[in-house]
């Protein structure tokens, strides 16, 4: 189950060194929802992949935990669903667009613009 609300129990605590090989990353929304998914899936987003790149020296690269103060849980869940959808269809041609609830569309749009995905 790559997408859960529970925190990942095996996170190094305290995190001492950067481990770019860490398979899972945690995305945290403004209201505290945590989404754990594979690094490769999350890196569909340009912003997240830059955050997690050890070369850029962000804390996120060490902890594998990205907190988004400007995105709430509902939107972040949709974004995570998109990551999975993108990962699942990455090598296909003519993929159907993902379904999004219309009322959240503008908010997801803002998040997508911020996350560069």
């Amino acid at each position: 189950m790559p997408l859960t609300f529970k925190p990942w129990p095996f996170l190094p605590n305290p995190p001492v060194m950067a481990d770019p090989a860490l398979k899972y990353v945690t995305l945290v929304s403004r209201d505290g929802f945590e989404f754990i998914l594979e690094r490769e899936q999350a890196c569909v987003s340009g912003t997240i992949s830059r955050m997690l790149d050890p070369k850029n020296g962000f804390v996120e690269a060490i902890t594998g935990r990205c907190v988004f103060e400007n995105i709430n849980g509902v939107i972040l869940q949709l974004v995570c669903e998109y990551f999975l959808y993108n990962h699942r269809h990455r090598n296909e041609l003519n993929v159907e667009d993902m379904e999004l609830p219309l009322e959240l569309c503008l908010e997801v749009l803002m998040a997508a613009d911020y996350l560069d995905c």
Partner: protein
Amino acid sequence: MYGRATAKSQHPHSALTDFLASNNISAAQIQDDYNRRVAEAARAEADEEEQQEEQAEREADPDHEELGSEVEETPEEKTRKRKRQQAIEKLKRSKEFARRKARRTGDPGDDADADEALADQMMSEKSRPIPGQLENCEICGKRFTVTPYSKTGPEGGLLCASCSKNQKEGNKKAPPKKRNSGISRRQNQNALLDGHVRNGPRSLLEICIKKVADNIDDVEEFGDLPPPVMLKISHILSRRRAITPKILDLFLRPHHRTLDIYDCAKLDTNDYHKILATMPSLTRLNLRFVTPMKDQILEYMIDKDIKLEDLHLDSPNLVSDACWRKLFSRIGPRLRSLKLWNLDSAFDDETAQVMAQSCRSLQRLKLKYFWKLGDEALRAISAMETLEHLSLQFMQETQPESILHLVSALGPNLRSLSLENFELADDRLVQGIHNKCRNLYKFRLTHNSVITDQALAELFRGWSNPALSYIDFSSLRDVDMANPDGPEEPIGLASNGFMALMEHSGSKLKSLNVSSCRHINRDAYEEVFGPDKRYPQLKSLDISFDGHVDDFIAQSIFRCCPALKKMVVFGCFKIRDLVVPKDVAVIGTVGAKLTVDGAVQV
């Protein structure tokens, strides 16, 4: 063979026989075959008649049936027989049966036997419905015409059209349409013509933007959407011609400095006023299809002393010359970029002179599809020394000297230069560009059949200008219907010019358009896209209407241009079978077989 030999010895050949023989077809053989077929058909007919007679005899003989029933039966056969018996019983009670019986009353013979025979006959008729015949529906009893699509009812009878439909719906839903796992051609071509090849899903941003555009009527306001996103939404809506006054309101933000609306055809004077009134800090105004725009809008700009720096208007034809001059003299000095398209009833040479005198800090100037401008305007523009980007397309013919003068005056400063439709311009123009221009990165010279290949080759040889990024030489070619190969000394961009161009700019070139330059021969292509050549940045290539390009050249192009995204090949009929790299959009092939990533598109 025998027939042929005798025919040979008896008759002289006909021309047809000769021709057929040369193609290894024997006329005698054909004749024999035909005779054999006729004979066979006759035999089959005779057989059928015999069978029918037999059957009639069998039907007349009641014992015949009994014989069959004495043979041992399996349970299935028993049930089938029982059902058949039931059906016959039912049939005997039907109106049709009664009517037929009445018709036969004159016949001799036992009544019961005759009934049995008639029932049998009707049964067999029923089991083989003939399309076109009339029949009573088994469910509703209506009379209807039998078609090949008529369904069989629960009791084995036929159903009318409406009952067939109900029956089908009741039985089972049609299986869900299987999604085509291969490439759906239409969808693909659609995307290709837009120039994008999509691998994998769209980005979330694109999905959202499309969704917002699809439901724009339900959007009350955009909130804090960033300007680039708003621009994209504006693109999509303009393309659908969906920008109405109500939707325009979504784009009006008092604190924004730019506004781009690509289709203003549905807006009226009030809406233009509203734009200017609600966005007082506008510095960039880009409106297309502004046919309804009148003098009073520009007057309003002048009165408000609007801080415009970039003004882009497409087809403001109701604006008078006097108003243009006033606008230029008032806000001209602060303009940095001016782009106007499609002016046919106003904007004459004199206005152009006022523009040239007033717009003293103009860096970008684009005047395209102007009907009234000519040599005078070119002379006026020659004095605008601040220009860095210049793009001109006049509908009138101009003298080669005027454009040469312009290039000599402005050349050293220019970074991009686009000259379209200067049909009289000659080799001197190209020499002038060679001598004066040092900073060009974008160069377009199109629609000319005077400039020679020699001059174009010399332009690129030893040119002190660094490698160009964008080159468009489309339609530089000789036009002479009587001499399709062109003159001995090639006119337009031909082999030498093309090789010199790629030699000079190949390393930086991003976009190259040489469509309709049909005198570039195959050897030149082979040389330019040879095994050791690489054009690392070339993304877009248009080689339409050069009949020399074939599969080999196209494959060589793919090999030499690793970054290629779009290749346009309209009218390259020698391209028949291509293996296309995954990210490349190949546009304009006719009936060619394209293999993308193992999947074949025809």
